[in-house]
Each structure stands twice: as C-alpha cells, then as structure tokens.
C-alpha cells in the first residue's frame, strides 16, 4: 500500500521511499522518511494535494509523489 491509498484519519508508518523519483527528496527533507509515523489529515477539493502530519507538523504532498511512499497501517488506538 502507498500513501496514495490512505483513508482520512488513518495512521501509517513509512516503510520505503523511492527517493529517486522527482519531487521526493524535498518531502524527505521535511521529515517524510522511512520509520516516520504519519496521519492523513485532509485534502484539497478533488483529493489532491493531500495533507499528512508527522510529529504534529502538517505537510502537503501531491498524489503523484504520495505514490512513491510505501506505507503499512498502524493500529489506531482511537
């Protein structure tokens, strides 16, 4: 599963980032790297771009780049 397929409110951990794809490195510099736990917050109309949060900071990411982040769901504790 990739970041693209996340549901609103869902929490995931980033497992693998395809760093060689365009526009990915800048997202990694903002903290979207392997091991980071993130939550899907919101999206603009049409679902693109998406807003995810990592350690309380919201970061915007386009759907295209979201497809380069493999994630695994975390069990939500409510």
């Amino acid at each position, binding site marked *: 599963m990739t970041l693209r397929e996340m549901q609103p409110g869902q929490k995931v951990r980033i497992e693998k980032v395809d*760093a*060689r794809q365009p526009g990915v490195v800048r997202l990694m510099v903002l903290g979207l790297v392997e091991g980071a736990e993130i939550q899907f917050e919101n999206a603009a109309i049409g679902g693109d771009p998406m807003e995810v949060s990592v350690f309380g900071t919201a970061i915007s990411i386009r759907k295209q780049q979201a497809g380069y982040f493999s994630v695994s769901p975390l069990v939500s504790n409510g």
Partner: protein
Amino acid sequence: MAETSAIYVPVEKIGIRRRVSTTLAIIGNPNSGKSTLFNRLTGLRQTTANYPGVTVEKHSGTVQLESSAIELIDLPGIYCLGGHSADERIAVDVILGRMADTHAPSGLLMILDATQLYQGLYLLQQLMEMQVPIIVALTMTDVATAKGIDISIEVLQRQLGGIQIFPVVATTGRGLEALKTALESVAESAPPQVPESWPELSRTADRLIQQTITPMQRIDVIQALLHPDSFHSKPLERQLGSQLVTDSRNALFGVEPPQAVEARHRYQWVRTVLGEVQRQAPMLERFEAKTLRWLNRPWPATVLFFAVMALIFQAVFSWATPMMNGIDAAAATMSAWVAAHLPAGAISSFITDGVIAGVGSVVIFLPQILILFLFIIVLEDSGYLARAAFLMDRVMRSVGLSGQSVIPMLSSFACAVPAIMAARVISDRRARIATILAAPFMTCSARLPIYALLIAAFVPDESVGWLNLQGLVLLGLYLMGILGGLATAWLLKRTALRGPKPDFAMALPEFRWPNLQTVSIKLMDRVRIFLRRAGTIIFVVAIIVWALAYFPRDGGIETGMQNAVVQLESTLAGEPLAEELLRIENEAAAAQLAQSYLGRAGKFIEPVFAPLGWDWRVSAAVIAGFPAREVVVAVMGTIYAVGDKAEVTSLVDKLRSATWPDGRPVFTLPMVLGLLLFYAWCLQCAATLAVIRRETNSWRWPIFAWTYMTVLGYTGALLIYQIGSRL
C-alpha cells in the same frame, strides 16, 4: 563642604544606548515564532535593508543588555541549509561572515519551536556542523503544554551535547530575561560537538579539508558533497579532482540522492531523541482544535478561502471611506487657506494645485492601502497564506505552476515588488520566472486609487440583488487581473518556459493568532515605504507635472481675459456678472492648459489613444503615469484643477463634466471601462521593472513584461471602447 547626594536611576529609564559589542544571528524554521522573538528582543530598534546584490531583506536590530548591546541579524526562516533557495544560501553566507556590509556573527541563536521539534532538530544538526557557538531558544512552550506535549529540557540538552536551551514564551515575554543574560556570553562558549546522527559526514569533510591547498569551511565541503552537479561542488572538485570527491560521495550515499540519505540519517536520530525527550499526554481534542480541523476539510476550507477574499475587498472599500473623507476635507481646508492668504499667481497655484492637490490625492488612499496590507500581514502571520497555497495548488497546476506561486500572487494584491521577491521560495526556475511575470497583473494597492476614482465617478451606485454595482465592477477588475496573470503564466509555460511540472512540498503551519507587535511593526514598515514614495517620487512627479501644465503662460490669453472682464463689469451686475466672470475664467484657464507643455504633449500623443476614446488630458495623465501608476490620480487632479477654476469641487465632479470640443462627454461608460482595463493590465511601475531585472538577472524579462503588458492593456481598452460604443 557641600554634601553631594547621588540618585541612582535604572538605565532602562533614562534610555542610555550602549554600544554594540557583538553580532549574533537568529535562525529557525518558518513560523517558529522567530520574528515575534526578534521583535521582543529588539523592540523598535531595528532596521530593514537589502543584502547587497540580492533581494533578500536584511532585518537587524539592537538588543540592549545589562552591560552591553548586541546586534541581532534576523535570518530568513528555513528548513535546511540545502542551498537551493536564495534564503538558504544567504543564511550560510551571513553565518560565515561572507556577506558584504554585514558583520560576521560570533554566535547563533537558534529558535526551536516546541511543537515542531522534529523539523527544528533537523536544521539544528546542520548548524551544529558549522563550528559556530549556538544557544537555543525553545519557543511555543505554552502551545506545547496546551497540547499535552511534555518536553524534558535537561534530557534534550544532554542529547545535544550540552547546548544551552532557554524556554521562552515570546508573546508574554516569559523566560526572556534569562535568554538575554545568556546572549551576552554566547560568543565565548565553545562551538558545539558534531551531532551524533551522522558523524561520518563531518569526518569525511574534515578529511577532505586536510587535503585541500586553500583551506575550506567544513560546511562548504559538506554542501559540495551533498549537492553534486551544483555550484557548491565546483570549488572542492577544482582542488581535489572530481574522482576523489565522487569516491567520497559513493562511500557516504551509495546510489541514492545524497540529500535523501542525509534526511534518513538525521531524522532517525531525531526520532530517537524525541522518544527520550518528549511525552505526549493523551488529550481530548478541544473545541477550538475540532473547529479548525473541520474548517480544513476540502469544501469548508475552499468556501472559507473565498469568503476571506470577499471580506478583504469589502473592507478595503467600505471601512476606509470615513478616513478618506477626513483626509479629503483636510486637503480642501489647506488649499482654501493658502488661496485666501497668498496673492493669486504662480506661487499660489504651485502650492494649492501642485503640492496639496498632488500629494493629497495620493495620501487619501493611505487608509485603503493600510487595510489591505493589514489583511495580508495578518494572513501571513496566522499561517493562512500557506493554507491558501495548499488549496489553490490544483488551480495553479492547471497553468503549469504550483501552489508555491500562490503566496507571491496573493502578496501581489498589496504590491508587486515584495511579491516578486517572495517568488524566491519557488525552487523551479521556470515556474519562478512565470510567477514573476504573472504577479504584476494582480491588482496592487497603487491601482486602487484609479479604480476608486473612476468607479465612484462613473459606475452607478446601485444594487444588483444584494450586491453593489460598484463593488461588482471592482471585483471584475480584480478577476481580470487574475485572469491576465494566469493566462500569461499558462502561455509562458507552454512556450518560452516549457519544462517539467514543478513539484509541491511544503509544511502547512497551524493556525495561530497573529501577534500584535509583529503585525504592527510590519504594517508600519509598509506604511513608511508608501509615504516615502508619496513624499519623494510622487511629490516630484506631481511638481513636474504641475510645472508642465502651468508653463508657458500665454500673455495674450491673460490680456484677453482682463479686457473681457472690464467690458463685462461695465455692462452687467450682480448674479449674471458673477456667472459670466466664472465662464470667462474657465475658458482662459482651459486655453492656458491647452497650450502648456503638458497640453501639447497630450495632444501630440492623442491620435495614438483616440481609438480608445481618450482625449489629450487623459492621454497626458497616462503618459505621466508610466514611472509610477499612483501618480495618475495626482496628475488628473492637477490637470483638472488647473484647467477648471470653478468653485472647489472634487475631482469626481470635474471628470464628469469633462467634454470633447463638440460637447460630447469624454468619460462615457465604455471609455471608463476600457481605461480601467488598461490600468488592470498595463505595467506602469518603474519599481516593478527594476525588481524583475534584479530577480531574473537580465534585461530581457523586464523589457518583455513591459511591452507585453502595455500592448495587452491597449488592446483590451480598444476592444471594450470600440465594441461598447457601438452597442
């Protein structure tokens, strides 16, 4: 022997200014509360200038301490020292003392936002490799506590190798005194140890430095390693040969992009540190947070965005009216007083029609500009501008740009000059230039005076449904500006600036109540700039235009009028006499203006603008407006005040009664709408051209922008007038 008694007064009270002994630089992430803390520390003792050769604004100020004073340089808010944007490069150059006219700082004050330690600690690691003493101010501790985040400062300090950390609440001033005391001794403390996240990077850099002939700074070598194929790597490769540098790179990064490997190392370390330092208490989401979350949902957020825009435009027009009436009345009183106390002639005309009318007609728009800038600054300070960029990314993508272009374009509604500078944050060069060329289309505050004048004079004050017709026309002009800008970007991105789609990655700051001090300092800055322009450029242009409109005087007209007056006085009396005298005076004044230098210039150019329905007076005003468009209202004021000596009426009435020689009114609705569109699209601003030249580093783009926009404005006005007049 007389007894002397000493009275001790605290230094603060008598305002002794100590001499600056050291320079420190303040650095941190965007929206980390850096500006608020900077303003808190320096108060009003700050200056804004430009770094030489670049357009990044240099803010510096003085902190008065117990026994010394410190110069504090406010560096731009950044996430990393990646060296891609101008902001990041300037941060490095200032810290290393490589910036001309700027003292090398002897230490750094790093701002760590307690709610965003994750990104903050990333930047801090890079700074720790620069071998410069650092102390940390931990801001937003109150917000963090409210969110249930508990931070152990002792543990954090230990993890950072002993860097001093001072918790402060910049808004209330808590913790400020301890921080100030510590600032005095930053320079004496030792540079921090290399961060434990990735010591291999610094070690490789140090090893390479030992092999160089001319010694290099560690940060420059690190940047060279991290950015292959960039200007960063050239000096190192020149000294050591590209093979050695490439080998070092391969050992560090393998086949992945260096910055990606860097991010993995550093953030892994940050996560370990945060695991020990930070505790999140389980919290029930409070009402405010719930509301904000709901407002960020796609549809509510988009509706809110347009509501905010509508509110701004409404406010600019309706809230400013009382203040504008006040300024108008004050100018009229001054003119009447001068006219009553000075003998009629060149000097009286110079003061009333030149100085007071010229400057007054610009200053009258200060309230509107004040309100507009207030909104833009509040939106920026509250973090909403980034939210707007997020919401509009899709729209901007359709013309080949990204949401990053939204912030410059929104700022451009206040003024294109800072907006074009704000385009620096756009990493993609083509997208940046397209944004720079689209920004001047947005309706800036200097266009408002002309819009306000013409709309008030010629668009009926009627309601269409629950909307006001004047407001609708104004909205239409804003939309035409947006349309022109977006279409231009779209065209450029398909032709001269064709290239891959720019990416969009940015942090979205949380909503934060704007800080009063920060907002007022920024607002005062903008007002000062506007008034300085009104007081210098606009004043000088107004004087020149007055002189061109007043000279040369035709003695024949004067004598003719005197004779007519004498003749009338012997045949008429009372009310009819007064009316006839006024008519003769008006005719004489109009004749004087028609043969003045400005009148001749306007008539010379009239054929060019005649297809647009402009007479020579409008043409003259437009010509005079090319250096700075806000002058146009002043020029019209001068032209019509000089040429029309009826009782003191407002410029609006004078424009309404302007006619062609055959008696047709000049300002018909199609002509006015065309004129408005001309102003919406034409680039009449030398300052904008200068800043485009500086930012694109070539004459090509400013020349293109000027020609393109002038032709577009002319064509638009031509079409509206020609089609509108035939309907």
